């Protein structure tokens, strides 16, 4: 690492911190809050959701997946981007209107059952953990490339993992990095900025997207594999049409026919069950605003992933062409193809921007990782501290005790994630899956989509859902998906393994079926009609809007600071997300 890249990286991180402090609205009041709800808020909240959602998997992983497997890697981008459409259709507005803070809270109150809450906490923790690991892996990879050196006794990769998790966990635990809407929004803007800069640089250098795809599809796709005499390029098998070569622009390089659908469906259904993303919806002022927020998120995600796919393609073409001119690429590549596909974007950044370019991309990746880790750790701490500790272990906990419970759980989750990330250092796994970071995130999506989403959607849209049904559904969904992973990790034959790695196709319908069957045999909660009024009625929304309208009308101009108490309450809730 040179002084330039270190300087640029430090400057960028400082810039984010500074902007967070400067841009953050001060003296916010109810008026500002509602004003924001109608003018800025929808967009800001959407940016913040993006900040939580776009992780290392999106930033490094999608480009890496496209880099390795071409069209089959694009399915990751499609799936991640599509995930918010079901959220918009089925979840966003009712979830906001019900007004509970987290998924376990929601299920617990909706079904009037503590058991459901605890089971949901368990599933949520598994999802969070499996989402944290790839983030830590992503930061390890970035560190490896950016710094290349480790702390004494640790490899560069391990240093990255340890440092990033430790720093974020410390910040989260001691309240220094509260996941406020503005912080997340600015972090996402930096991420998007890095991606856009890279895209502009690549496009400016004469890269022609369409013909690059054609050119790359002209020859069979080959990726590095360890052989007897070191690494060599091994052509990928075509999973759809055995015998034919796998091509960049055509499906089949990584997934068989069924696995293609399974992967997309897994990602699509998973988003609605992601705890840290769903928690964000409570910062919307109304259900309708939550809906419009999701539309924004869909748009931003589309832009983001379209760019990521384009950059993955560009990396495949440009890095191979640049090997001759850039001697430092020697040790990272085999015949012009990267050993670790996650290096695609950072390397591209270095080719086009030198050391500062590398730093920009690395800053983007680190910000993506940190904002997502922060969101996840907060969600984990909230569900341990709020749902388990305060309700079950120590119902009469003092404020301090609750805070310490939250900190302890943060530390525990962070340590677990870091340890698992170190155990799964990528290079050993690379040939098995297109992009280890993207693939690992898929596991989190699979568990969320199999265990949480079906129960969640049923609880919102079917009055007959019962606590017993939900418990059974979550258990079955979780168990089926995890056992399919285990099966998939065993050698079960080509094609089938990938399908087993994306179990939602089987597990989600099964979970829904079990929920339905068990619910039919048990009685739903008595107050379901009253809950329906809250979930699907707009009375509270209209009241909030009327209040905002009256407030605005009554203070057309000068006095903007008032009703601070309400605003602070909102802010407090905001800070949890």
């Amino acid at each position, binding site marked *: 690492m040179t002084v330039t890249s270190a300087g640029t990286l430090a400057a960028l991180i400082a810039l984010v911190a500074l902007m967070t402090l400067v841009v953050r609205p001060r003296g916010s009041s109810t008026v500002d809050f509602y004003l924001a709800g109608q003018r800025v808020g929808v967009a800001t909240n959407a940016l913040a959701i993006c900040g939580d959602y776009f992780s290392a998997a999106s930033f490094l992983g999608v480009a890496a997946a496209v880099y390795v497997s071409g069209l089959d890697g694009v399915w990751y981008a499609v799936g991640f981007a599509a995930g918010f459409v079901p959220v918009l259709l089925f979840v966003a507005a009712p979830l906001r209107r019900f007004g509970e803070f987290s998924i376990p809270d929601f299920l617990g109150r909706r079904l009037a059952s503590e058991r459901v809450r605890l089971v949901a906490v368990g599933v949520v923790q598994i999802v969070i953990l499996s989402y944290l690991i790839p983030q830590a892996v992503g930061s390890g990879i970035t560190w490896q490339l950016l710094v290349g050196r480790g702390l004494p006794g640790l490899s560069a990769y391990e240093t990255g993992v340890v440092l990033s998790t430790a720093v974020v966990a410390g910040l989260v635990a001691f309240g220094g990095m509260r996941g406020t809407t503005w912080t997340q929004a600015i972090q996402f803007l930096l991420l998007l900025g890095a991606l856009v800069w890279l895209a502009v640089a690549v496009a400016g250098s004469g890269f022609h997207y*369409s013909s690059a795809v*054609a050119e790359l599809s002209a020859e069979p796709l080959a990726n590095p594999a360890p052989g007897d005499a070191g690494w060599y390029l091994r052509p990928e098998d075509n999973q759809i049409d055995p015998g034919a070569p796998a091509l960049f622009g055509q499906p089949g390089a990584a997934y068989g026919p069924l696995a*293609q659908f399974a992967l997309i469906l897994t990602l699509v259904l998973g988003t609605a069950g992601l705890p840290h993303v769903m928690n964000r919806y409570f910062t919307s002022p109304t259900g309708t605003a939550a809906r*419009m927020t999701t539309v924004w998120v869909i748009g931003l995600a*589309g832009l983001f992933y379209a760019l990521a*796919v384009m950059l993955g393609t560009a990396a495949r073409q440009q890095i191979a062409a640049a090997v001759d001119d850039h001697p430092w690429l020697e040790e990272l590549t085999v015949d012009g193809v990267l050993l670790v596909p996650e290096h695609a974007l950072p390397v591209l950044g270095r080719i086009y921007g030198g050391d500062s370019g590398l730093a920009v991309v690395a800053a983007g990746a680190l910000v993506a990782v940190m904002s997502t880790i922060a969101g996840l750790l907060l969600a984990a701490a909230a569900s341990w501290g709020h749902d388990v500790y305060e309700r079950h272990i120590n119902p009469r906990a003092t404020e301090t005790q609750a805070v310490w419970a939250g900190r302890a759980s943060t530390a525990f989750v962070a340590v677990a994630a870091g340890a698992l990330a170190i155990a799964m250092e990528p290079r050993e796994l690379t040939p098995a899956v297109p992009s280890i970071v993207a693939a690992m995130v898929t596991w989190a999506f699979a568990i969320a989509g199999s265990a949480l989403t079906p129960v969640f959607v049923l609880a919102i849209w079917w009055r007959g859902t019962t606590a017993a049904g939900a418990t059974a559904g979550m258990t079955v969904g979780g168990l089926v998906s995890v056992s399919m992973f285990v099966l998939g990790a065993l050698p079960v034959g080509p094609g089938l393994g990938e399908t087993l790695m994306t179990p939602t196709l089987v597990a989600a319908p099964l979970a829904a079926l079990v929920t339905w069957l068990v619910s039919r045999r048990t009685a739903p909660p008595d107050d379901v009609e009253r809950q329906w009024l809250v979930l699907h*009625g707009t*009375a509270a929304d209209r009241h909030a809007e009327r209040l905002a309208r*009256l407030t605005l009308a009554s203070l057309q101009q000068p006095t903007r600071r008032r009703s601070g108490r309400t605003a602070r309450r909102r802010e407090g809730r905001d800070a949890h997300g």
Partner: protein
Amino acid sequence: MEFDDGVDEHDTPAEVDAAFRTLRRVAITHVVLFLAALMGVPALSLTLGWWSDGRLAGGMSPGFAMAAFGLYAFFLVIGLAAASLSSAVEARMLGGRHVDDADGFPPEEDRP
């Protein structure tokens, strides 16, 4: 609340149930469309040679172009359509004392 004019909004169960059914219909039609398009892209590449072999101006196949940017635009369009339709349905099927705002008759005047 100091700005509350004392009229709290209120929905009856039958009204909420009606809005719920209509919204469910909206959601289901949109999700069917969405899944058809989403699954259609890989399905076409498995069944229709032209989808992967054809060349759009420049060299990309229709399938790749769809996955690389077409689908994202589609998501945005269908999301916007669903969101605006759902919100409009809610605005029309629940509440509704706003009718009197329209004819220039301030609601406060004739309230008890």
